[in-house]
Each structure stands twice: as structure tokens, then as C-alpha cells.
């Protein structure tokens, strides 16, 4: 059986290999598990993580917080985004708010959230707050980008309000929603784990990272990081896949 790769895949694989080699060299140079454990050790630890009885609860908790945060920010983002898309005054009002939220360092938001909320809800709140500006802005842009001429054509052919919304507005907005979702999830996933590191809920990837720090298990810190990166990557894949399904017409 021959397995062949395209050129592009070769280069990507080579890139990963080079990163691993550099890692190994640096680990050997430092010679200390506290500074940088070698890759083999870390991968072994990563596998051990999977066998931990609480692994599913830990990863699941972080995932559920992200999903809940995403749903809330999706609803809020779309609601406000639609209003801002239709009403320019409201858009002007909303803009500075969104810019402020987006520019505030996440850590500042977390520290404030710790004061206002219980530790269990801090990560969800953070997820929501960091994700919603992306969705909101993209929905607004999407609505404003709808081709006036297409709407005119549809009105001319007496397509009816509901049909116009369903078949002219929504398909035009979907690419923007997907783009917003992609940014939101990428950002929110990382923010939520940072939130967990500081608020320390009982189950969470961030919590376990912090624990590993306390117990001087540097390889576990990296291992959990790898878990987080893998999940982040999977989110990305899911979004790419749904993009292909929802906006097949673009490809």
C-alpha cells in the first residue's frame, strides 16, 4: 500500500517535525524538567492524561462552558447585530461598546469577573463576553453587505417579505456568521481556559493546568496545553466542514 502526500502536505508535516526537533534540542540544552521537558516525556504524560478517570469530566466541563458561552453570545450577538445592521444609529451607539470590550485585555476582564461572579460562572461569563463582539460585528457587516440590487430584484418579482428574508438576506449573511463564529470560538476557547486558571472551578482544563504548576509537573502543564490545542484545532475543522456545507456555492 502506497501512501502518497501532496507537496503542500509534505511541507506541513516537515514543519511539525522541525518544531519537534527544535523542542528536543532546547530540552536537551536546558537539561531541566522544570524549564522544558523533552517531547517524548511530554507525549507520554499526555497519553497518561487520557487515562485519568476524570479526564472526560475535566475536558467536558471546559467544553460545556464554552458551548454555553457560545450559545449565549450567539443569541446576544445576532440579536444586537441584526438591530445594528438595520438601524445605523444603533450601530453607531454599539460600536464603541464593542471596541472597548474587544480591546480590553482578557486578564482584566477575568479579574473583574472574579469580583462580580462566583468562580464557577466566571469562565462562562468570560467566554460570552469575548465571543459576542465578534459575532455581533460580523452579523452587522453581513446585513449591511446585502446587495441592495438583489433585494430590489426580489421585491420587483413580488417575492414577499418572508421569502426575501429567507432566500436573500439569510444566505447573504451566513458567510459572515461563519467567519464571526470562527474568530469567536478561537478567541473564546483560549479565554475560557485562562479564566479557569484564575477562578479554579473544580473541573476544567485551566484548573488542571494550574494544579500541574503547583505540583511542579511542568510536563503536565504542557500536556494539558497540547490537549487544549488539539481541541481548538478540532473546532476549526468543524467550522471548515460546515462552511463547505453551508456555502457550497462559493467554492
Amino acid at each position, binding site marked *: 500500500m502506497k501512501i502518497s502526500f501532496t507537496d503542500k502536505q509534505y511541507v506541513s508535516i516537515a514543519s511539525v517535525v522541525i518544531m519537534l526537533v527544535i523542542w528536543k534540542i532546547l530540552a536537551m540544552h536546558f537539561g531541566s524538567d522544570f524549564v522544558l521537558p523533552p517531547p517524548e516525556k511530554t507525549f507520554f504524560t499526555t497519553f497518561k492524561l487520557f487515562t485519568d478517570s476524570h479526564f472526560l469530566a475535566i475536558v467536558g466541563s471546559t467544553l460545556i462552558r464554552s458551548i454555553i458561552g457560545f450559545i449565549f453570545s450567539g443569541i446576544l450577538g445576532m440579536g444586537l447585530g441584526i438591530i445594528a445592521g438595520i438601524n445605523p444609529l444603533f450601530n453607531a451607539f454599539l460600536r464603541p461598546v464593542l471596541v472597548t470590550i474587544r480591546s480590553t485585555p482578557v486578564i482584566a476582564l477575568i479579574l473583574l469577573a472574579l469580583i462580580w461572579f462566583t468562580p464557577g460562572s466566571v469562565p462562562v461569563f468570560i467566554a460570552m463576553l469575548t465571543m459576542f463582539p465578534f459575532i455581533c460585528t460580523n452579523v452587522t457587516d453581513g446585513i449591511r453587505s446585502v446587495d441592495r440590487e*438583489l433585494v430590489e430584484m426580489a421585491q420587483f*418579482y413580488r417575492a414577499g417579505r418572508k421569502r426575501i428574508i429567507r432566500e*436573500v438576506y439569510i*444566505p*447573504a449573511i451566513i458567510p459572515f456568521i461563519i467567519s464571526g463564529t470562527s474568530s469567536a470560538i478561537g478567541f473564546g476557547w483560549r479565554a475560557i481556559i485562562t479564566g479557569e486558571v484564575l477562578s479554579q472551578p473544580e473541573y476544567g482544563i485551566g484548573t488542571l493546568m494550574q494544579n500541574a504548576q503547583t505540583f511542579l509537573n511542568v510536563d503536565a502543564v504542557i500536556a494539558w496545553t497540547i490537549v487544549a490545542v488539539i481541541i481548538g484545532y478540532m473546532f476549526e475543522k468543524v467550522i471548515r466542514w460546515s462552511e463547505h456545507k453551508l*456555502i457550497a*456555492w*462559493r467554492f
Partner: protein
Amino acid sequence: MMNLEIKGLYKSFEDISLFRNFSINFPEGEITCILGPSGCGKTTLLNIIGNIIRPDSGILNGFDGKVISYIFQDPRLLPWKTVRGNIEFVLNKNLPAEKRKEITGHFIKLVELEGFEDFYPGKLSGGMRQRVAIARAFAYPSDIILMDEPLKGLDIKLKLNLIQTFSQIWQSDRRSVIFVTHDVDESLLLSNEIVVFSRAPVNILTRQKVEMPLTNRSPDSEYLKRLKQILLNNLGT
């Protein structure tokens, strides 16, 4: 034959008076071309007929209750719908699926796009997209078809092609067509009657019938060349 009439039309934009006590009639079931220089108000008249804008005053006779299709300068197809989907878009949702398929199939065939039913506009050439727009305009159960410079910017070959397509369809389904252009050759190849507009405020400079079957027309025809001269003379004023 019934006429579609416009009487005593007044319309200004800002301070420019486009129509001052203007009247015109269009024979039903015929292709009437409005020929005139850019900016003289041709599109505005079309939009008034199509009810997109309101006149300042005036009477429109014979237009009540009439269903109107519009072919715009650019095809205005929904990028996320296939060729079939775009044509179906103007059909009544309540029609059963087979009926809709039948209608769309019929017109797709007439514009010679068989085989492309499931293509998205992104994969079609400019000319093909305009053909879909034509099919759509005809698939819509309209009494009148309005066209605003539908061949603008297309190359000669494509123009002739589309004119051919259009005439073919029209032969089997003779709706009233009013189309607007500044291109004399187009007007000669596609209409039954040509009305020449002056600059604003609009006057009718001349009306010329084209007594030649649509399918026979070619730019080389002597008859058409003579007609062209008349039109150019009028446009010169």
C-alpha cells in the same frame, strides 16, 4: 390592438425636469425600443412603468393589474442558488414541485442552458448569467417585460447570441416588451418599433417601425442600414 398609454407625465429630479407633460403609447404584444442619449430619463420612465418610482403627476392607462418582469442591466442572480433555483425563485411557492420543475426546465431549454441547471452563477459566464435572467423574466407569469440596457457591456458575438435567444423565446410567447438602450444597432436588431427620445425635458423625436421579421435580421441588411441613418440623424439633434 390595445395600447399601453402614458398621458401628461411630469417628473423632475432635484431641479432637473425630465418629463414635462409627456405622453407616449406602446402597442401591446410588441417589442418597443426606447432609444436615446444617456441620462435623458429612459430608465426613469421604465421605473415609473415598473412602479419603482412615482411620477409627480400623470396618468398610466392599461397598466393596472398587469404583472411586470424586469431584466436589469446586470443579471442580479442570487449567487447561492443554482440556475434552476434562481428561476424558481420567481415562481409561486405553492405550485407543486413537478410543475415548477416543468416550467424552469422549459425556459432553461429556451435559453439553451440545458445541462447547466445545477450550476451556480459563480461558475457561469456573463452571457450565460444574462440568459438566466431572461429565462427568469419569462418564467415569471408577467404581461409586460421591461428591460434596461440588458446588453450593455457585452461583446458583439454575445449580443447577437442573446438577441437571438430572446427573439426565439418571444416568438412563442409574445408579451409586451419595453426596452431601453442607447445603442442604435441593438434597437434595430431587437424591436418592432423604435421611439427616439431627446434630451431632458424629453420629447419624442421620431417613431420608426421596423418591418422585418426578427429572425431574419442582420446588421448587413440594407433596409436596416437605411433605418439606422434615419435614427442617427435624429439622435444628432
